[in-house]
């Protein structure tokens, strides 16, 4: 158990930090995830060899971790307001992710997104859920999931550009 915990702690912690802002929350959620993992490890079905098996296992871990995080947000009555978007529905200029942009910077930018938008962005873009699954898990209409994803991307791009310009000026 200890080896498992120490090996995947950082992996689950990184996932959790994408959903919750505070380190303390994330630490507790990681522990809750491990509780579920240990309790349900007998249910894990692995196949394949080595890397494939580990990928499957990590996928299983991440699903548990995401669920724990979403449960947490849901229990905290995640904001569902639709009126917190001030980004116009206009195309954002293309921009590439700078090589110098660190994950911590991306996380900081994402922290500025409203909670629901950040969650949907993470679930769709990073975890690979589709809109139907997101709608079911978050108990929102599928269209809302799509809208929020679009808005989150636009806002992220805007925030990223601002961050990029700021860092360029700082040089």
């Amino acid at each position: 158990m200890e080896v498992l915990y120490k090996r995947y702690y950082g992996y689950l912690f990184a996932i959790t930090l994408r959903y919750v802002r505070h380190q303390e929350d994330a630490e507790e959620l990681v522990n809750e995830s491990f509780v579920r993992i240990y309790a349900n490890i007998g249910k894990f079905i692995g196949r394949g060899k080595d890397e494939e098996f580990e990928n499957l296992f990590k996928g299983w871990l991440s699903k548990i971790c995401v669920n724990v995080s979403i449960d947490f947000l849901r229990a905290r009555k995640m904001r569902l307001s639709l009126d917190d978007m001030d980004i116009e529905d206009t195309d954002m200029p293309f921009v590439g992710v700078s090589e110098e942009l660190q994950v911590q910077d991306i996380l900081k930018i994402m922290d500025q997104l409203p909670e629901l938008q950040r969650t949907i962005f993470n679930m769709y873009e990073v975890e690979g859920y589709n809109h139907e699954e997101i709608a079911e898990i978050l108990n929102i209409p599928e269209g809302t999931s799509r809208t929020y994803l679009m808005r989150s991307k636009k806002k992220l791009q805007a925030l990223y550009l601002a961050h990029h310009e700021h860092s360029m000026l700082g040089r």
Partner: protein
Amino acid sequence: MDKNDKHNMNFWKDMADRLREHREPYKEGAWEQFESHYLDNAAPATGTPAHRGASVRTMGSRWKSWSAGVAAAALLLFGMIWLWPSVDPVEDPVLVQSNEGSPVTGSGPEAASAGAAAGTDAVPIEPNERTFARGASRVTSQIPHFVSATPASPSTAPDPAETLTKSGSVRNELTLARLESIQIHSGSLLTASGQELVANLSGSRPGNGRTASGMTKEKNGLLNSIFGSLNEDLSIQPGVKGDRTYTGDKWALGLSVASMMTSEQMNVGGGLSVAYKLSDRLFLRSGVSVARLGVSTPSSGNRGPSAYVGSIASGGSNGGVSGPQGPSGPTGSTGSYNGSGNVASISPEAIPTHYTRLLNGASSNLLTLDVPLDLKYFITDKFYTSLGVSFFGILNENRTNHYIDKINEPLFNGYTANGQDMEFAMRTLLVNETTKYRPLEGNGYAGFLNFSVGRQTRVSSKINLAIEPFFKLPVGRLMREEMNMTNGGIRIVTGF
């Protein structure tokens, strides 16, 4: 797909990849913290290390522990309120009797004899006989399907080289050798429903045999049945959705403890609260709380007595106090006196030639039940304000009247001729009397207007704590009472 779209796709893919591949460093001490908080160390008799015999303490069991703790705290609080002896807010309370029409009885021996002479009995206040069962049951639980089945002795332990096996030939041959990761202690077995089951996840050590050597057909069959159904679950539901039971998105429960100040004294109370989510920021909150409130009529201060009760002329019969009725109720309410350190006995024969009683005020100790109905609005994520009304009931009231008695003749021991100063002849006694008069109990709407602001902080994923200064203004019948019921204080609300 135009070029811009393609670039955008790459942008998001790049960002997602970076996030996906990112790992936080291991935080030193995290495992130890997890082990101490989330694992029940068990089965020392097996001779296994504690963590090997550990079973996971679920959130469910933690939740029960929390609930038991909170319930115990609530019981303790209620017990304190219920059993707390009625405390007269005025220092040095004296009188323990309220006997209509009875002559004066005193606290000293002389007074006792005076009472006996008058044929009356002092009625002692009965001790509060209510008792309150206390105690909280200890709740423990373990996950049934993650019970260590570690053998008691190494000789009977399964081969540490046994590996996680799956149903079917392919799964039975599955190895974890190059995974080098999922290493659960050698010899430990994961069990399902208490049966010896599967997995000895070992294999970080090179050279370990990783065959399903110990697996019997029976076990394989069991695995097939378990994994088969679970496989479906996992494929349909990501993770273990629904493992945890929340109160629900719409409802929130809480326990509150409040310290409140009336014009008279500091009080305590507590109760349960329930909130219903009307919208993203708006909640309807209700509940029930019990509190002790010490209230009093506005103090007359140095302005002199607030009410005149009566006076007795020389030679008057006992109990014949005449004059306007004060809050003490019926006239003739008599008692013993212990004012300003002086003890005076008053017998029928010794009724002062000039005895004046003035009602200086009254105080009451109330056991109250409060049912609020508030609208709670979150201004920000953490700060909220609340406005509403309370329905207010009085379960018990202990009222004390405060009198100023002025008696001159019996206290005059000297002779006018021998130089004794007449100024000592007039003694002023401060008298406290309990009374059966219960003016606050009765029909009609009694309530408060509630105002509060609060700040909510989460202490764990399930529990939040709010500190909420509040202010309550009496309305309805309470507003017309002579007692000042206005109160305010700080409430601490633990929400679930």
